[in-house]
């Protein structure tokens, strides 16, 4: 009996509560993510062929475009989609609230403020230290953590009653962060900030490997830590006291989800700016397709987010060639009517 109790239930039960359909769905999502990635690497204002690249038939300039521009961009869009998707799903589970989204509740804005603060005020630091590339993502993570912690204390531990309240706090935080970013933009020189639109509408352009690698590490780590907590997030839906009675260390669960969401959202915002509504739409689509249990919703949202974001970025790049649409414009154009529909639907419940 002793051995039974020493087992940690979050990991061992993972596959017991995922249905065959859900495993099939996740495999399909994974394959479409790979397929979209290949499409996104191939198409663009500069034509490329992966087959030629693998056969070594490409020119130097084609190789450079592929490995230094196209590939990092596709990876970043996939990572941003995955991190926003899974964080949206995890926060919705944690808040027991289908309207939680890292963008709506101000987490992305907090991250953006942290990153801009670091860029404008800490401008010289990057060149001085070898670990300087980590500073922007770290500042963004600090910003997003601060926002989630604020939300946590202001909604008194994410009670289900606090739905409207949490969204109102989110509006206020978004406004505060907007003012902060505005002031920083105003006092900064052109070279320090790429542009205000970058932070408010998001972009995957201009990313380089040295900036991307720390973000890959942070997001991958956050996702790996988050997924084993899926079953506990399910139990949390019964209410905190009930989850506790079923053996969940609720405090630990909360802090783990808060920190991993803050880390992954912060890291992705640091490179791609604020991309709205992804964290809201993706988990809902995932649930509509295959069910609500978090063993499926968390990894499913990560895969769905990555696949959708890669294809959305491809569309943003090729639809008005040679210019490109800001990615956040596309996601918000689709997301805001969806948000309205969701509010309408919840009201009817």
């Amino acid at each position, binding site marked *: *009996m002793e*051995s*039974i*109790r020493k*087992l*940690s*239930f979050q990991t*061992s*039960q993972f596959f*017991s*509560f995922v249905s065959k359909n859900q495993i099939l769905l996740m495999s399909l999502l994974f394959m479409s993510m790979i397929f979209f990635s290949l499409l996104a690497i191939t198409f663009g204002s500069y034509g490329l062929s992966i087959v030629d690249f693998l056969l070594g038939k490409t020119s130097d300039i084609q190789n450079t475009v592929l490995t230094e521009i196209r590939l990092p961009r596709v990876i970043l869009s996939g990572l941003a989609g995955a991190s926003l998707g899974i964080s949206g799903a995890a926060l*919705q589970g944690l808040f*027991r*609230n*289908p309207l939680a989204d890292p963008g709506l509740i101000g987490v992305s804005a907090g991250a953006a403020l942290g990153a801009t603060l670091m860029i404008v005020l800490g401008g010289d630091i990057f060149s001085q230290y070898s670990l300087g590339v980590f500073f922007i993502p770290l500042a963004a993570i600090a910003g997003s953590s601060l926002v989630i912690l604020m939300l946590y204390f202001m909604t008194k531990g994410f009670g*289900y009653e606090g739905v409207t309240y949490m969204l109102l706090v989110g509006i206020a935080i978004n406004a505060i962060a907007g003012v902060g970013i505005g002031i920083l933009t105003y006092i900064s020189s052109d070279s320090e900030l790429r542009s205000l639109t970058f932070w408010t509408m998001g972009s995957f352009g201009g990313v380089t490997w040295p900036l991307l690698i720390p973000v890959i590490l942070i997001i991958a780590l956050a996702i790996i830590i988050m997924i084993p907590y899926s079953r506990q997030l*399910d*139990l949390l*839906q*019964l*209410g905190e*006291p*009930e989850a*506790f*009675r*079923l*053996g*969940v*260390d609720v405090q630990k669960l909360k802090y783990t989800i808060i920190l991993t969401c803050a880390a992954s959202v912060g890291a992705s915002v640091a490179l791609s700016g604020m991309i709205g509504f992804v964290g809201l739409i993706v988990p809902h689509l995932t*649930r509509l397709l295959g069910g*609500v*249990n978090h063993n499926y919703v968390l990894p499913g949202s990560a895969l769905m987010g990555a696949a959708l974001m890669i294809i959305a970025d491809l569309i943003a790049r090729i639809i008005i060639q040679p210019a490109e649409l800001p990615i956040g414009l596309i996601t918000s154009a689709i997301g805001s009517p969806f948000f309205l529909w969701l509010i309408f639907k919840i009201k009817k*419940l």
Partner: protein
Amino acid sequence: MTISAKSISLELGGKKILNNISMDVRPGEILSIIGPNGAGKTSLLNVLSGNIKSHNGNVSYNNTPLESISIQERAYIRSVMSQFQSIAFDYSVEDILQMGWLDHSHKDIKEDLSAFQNQVIKECDMENLIHQKFNTLSGGEQRRVHFARTLLQLWQPANTKDQNYLLLDEPFSNLDLVHKVKMMESIKAKASSGTGILMILHDLNLAYSFSDKILLLKNGRVIEQGETKKMLSARLLARAYETFISIDENPINIRYY
């Protein structure tokens, strides 16, 4: 081997909720807590389940102090059914039921789960509910699902027989007559297999007809506790509820089963 509380006192927001309470939940016994609204019944249950830490006194499970039992391990010793809030997402009844399934480190987890689950579904008369969405069920049906979940939580591998307990807060609220009787039978069966039962009840008739022992609580104090027969006193109940109460031998005995 008991769930044992010694000199429990609890204050919330400067108000004394529980005052020097000592009690035991014993194996195979049904203990009912009765008392007027605001007596502290649910708070006492929360202290016993470990959800709230009392300011004075201590709780122990099977002679081990509660603090030295991990949160996860407690789930194997006692399962709790409380009053419930709504659930935000569209879980199926089966999903909610399976949330009671704890981790048992053995290979045929799926076989054991589905075998015991079927048994519990039958016992709680849930065959036609199991594939519905939980949020579409009526209040009484949701209660039955939660009750079934607490039963599932107490599953043990065939070769083990650890002492466990069932703590129930108003288990029969919203239930129709038939399901009230059925749930009561499940609870009695659980007790005769050795599980210790604690129930909070408002229906005094039910409490007196089914319990082995009764604990009468008022204003956070134990007025009296003991064998059900000994506790059957109009004077005692009148003191607790501050109203005239008479106890009649029921002239027409309606039996539901």
